[in-house]
């Protein structure tokens, strides 16, 4: 009870940040919109999808999955900053549950990402992206995206607690790009060299992107293989596995602050 209450107070702290400094979240959203425009209109004309379909319809779900994954960076940075400034130590010296700090992070980052997702959906609809399925499937698609964000949140908490120097966040900032591009988020795996395509197909990001395309009724760029038949199941399984791995690792990293 006190843990949840403290977690909520820490979530409110982040919400207060946005009121104080609205440019940080606005810049995040502008960045997503910029990527959308670059890929949708600059590169989009040169991209043909296996299985056919409009690239903009293919791209939007990919961008959504990508922005969920990129959230790992803001989570890790926020955790590392608090640790560096001694704020984490202050929290640890207070009579609050040991899960409060992580809960506050989860509350704040999930709210932030839900907002980002909303902007991408509205922005997408404005540039011609369409949902052609039923509302229930579309809702499931949104839930799968948030599930991915939830999973990478714990990766971010783990990284932020484990590597507290500024170098760690810099590494995350660089690494999210190859991981993001080596997936079906932007281009179909079937247009890649076979070995690379196989790696991309097994990227958790690809599972979510493809599942979300199927659920929104968008072209998937997939004509065969594991993603064709099992994307939705993979989009459930991958985040759950990542969460199951990184929640205990995060808890361990938090305990190791006592070492």
């Amino acid at each position, binding site marked *: 009870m006190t843990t949840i209450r403290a977690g909520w107070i820490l979530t409110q702290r982040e919400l207060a940040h946005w009121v104080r400094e609205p440019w940080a979240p606005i810049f995040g959203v502008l960045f997503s919109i910029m990527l959308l425009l670059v890929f949708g209109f600059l590169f989009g004309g040169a991209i043909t999808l296996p299985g056919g379909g409009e690239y903009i319809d293919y791209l939007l779900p990919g961008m959504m999955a990508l922005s969920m994954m990129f959230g790992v960076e803001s989570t890790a940075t926020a955790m590392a900053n608090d640790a560096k400034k001694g704020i984490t130590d202050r929290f640890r010296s207070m009579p609050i549950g040991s899960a409060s700090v992580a809960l506050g992070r989860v509350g704040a980052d999930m709210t932030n990402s839900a907002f980002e997702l909303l902007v991408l959906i509205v922005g997408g609809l404005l540039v011609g992206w369409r949902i052609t399925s039923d509302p229930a499937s579309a809702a499931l698609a949104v839930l799968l995206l948030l599930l991915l964000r939830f999973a990478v949140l714990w990766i971010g908490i783990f990284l932020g607690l484990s590597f507290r120097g500024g170098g760690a966040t810099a590494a995350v900032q660089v690494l999210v790009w190859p991981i993001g591009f080596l997936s079906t988020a932007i281009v179909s795996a079937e247009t890649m060299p076979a070995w690379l395509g196989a790696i991309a197909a097994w990227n958790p990001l690809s599972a979510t992107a493809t599942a979300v395309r199927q659920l929104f009724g968008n072209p998937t760029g997939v004509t065969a293989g594991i993603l064709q038949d099992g994307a939705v199941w993979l989009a459930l399984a991958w985040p759950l596995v990542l969460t199951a791995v990184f929640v205990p690792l995060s808890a361990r990293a938090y305990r190791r602050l*006592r070492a």
Partner: protein
Amino acid sequence: MHTLIAEGLRKRYGDLAALDGFDLHVPAGVIHGLLGPNGAGKTTAVKALATLIDLDEGSASVAGFDVRTQAAQVRRRIGLIGQNAAVDEVLGGRQNLVMFGRLYGLGKTQAQERADEMLSIFGLSDAAEKAVSTYSGGMRRRLDIAAGLLLTPAVLFLDEPTTGLDPRARNEVWTTIREIAARGTTVLLTTQYLDEADQLASEISVMNHGKIIAQGTPTELKRHVGGDRVTLTLALRDRLDRVAEKLGPTATVDEDTRTITVELAGESLAGIIRTLDDLGVTPEDLQLRRPTLDEAFLALTSPEAVR
């Protein structure tokens, strides 16, 4: 009745013994200075007493509660002020205090009232709504200390609170610390500066290599260090030894800098000048200064130093 008790604390980091048999007894309501150079283990000691780290050995209690087995009770009775001002820079001063107050378990209205009270005590009412990033170093530190005092703790840990502050901000923080102690809170203050401990603490423990090497009132400790020093710089190197000889047993010569240092214990400043006059020597420079921490350590770690 001791508010802080540490007995035989040990904590290793790899090959380094950060705490190596650390003992401390601090009575209620005093400012106790924990003095030592960088790496002496001061921060580790504070973190152990504030329930932030696990100990390898030893036992400690704060306000009557065991730091190992009753951490939750200890945390309700302490305030921790670390080396960095651990406040949220984006939020305003008031927002910070309300947030920390609520984390301490105060209700919303209660937390707001307490925040306003603290802001006025610490002279931050005018800046209450401004983002902390616009605060000066001294203001930030005061806000930081205010956050640690929201629940009127039995013990306040201050880990090098004036490191990195300019003299004016340092004086502000000193005044604050004196006021806190006057209200009955026990303060454990770590510092690298002898004069800071001297100014604030009624008792000082000198720490080195993970343990206390000397303890006493500032006056008692200074007796080990000796009195003020006079440093003379002479123009001619070949006269150093002859002049030093006349200045008594405490005079030490440094040939490279052409200086003689004399303790002002038996010798008075007037006496020294008279001696120089008699010898027909006019020094290029004459400086009167307090003992440095280096000299304190040399004195305190020498064999005749009393524990």
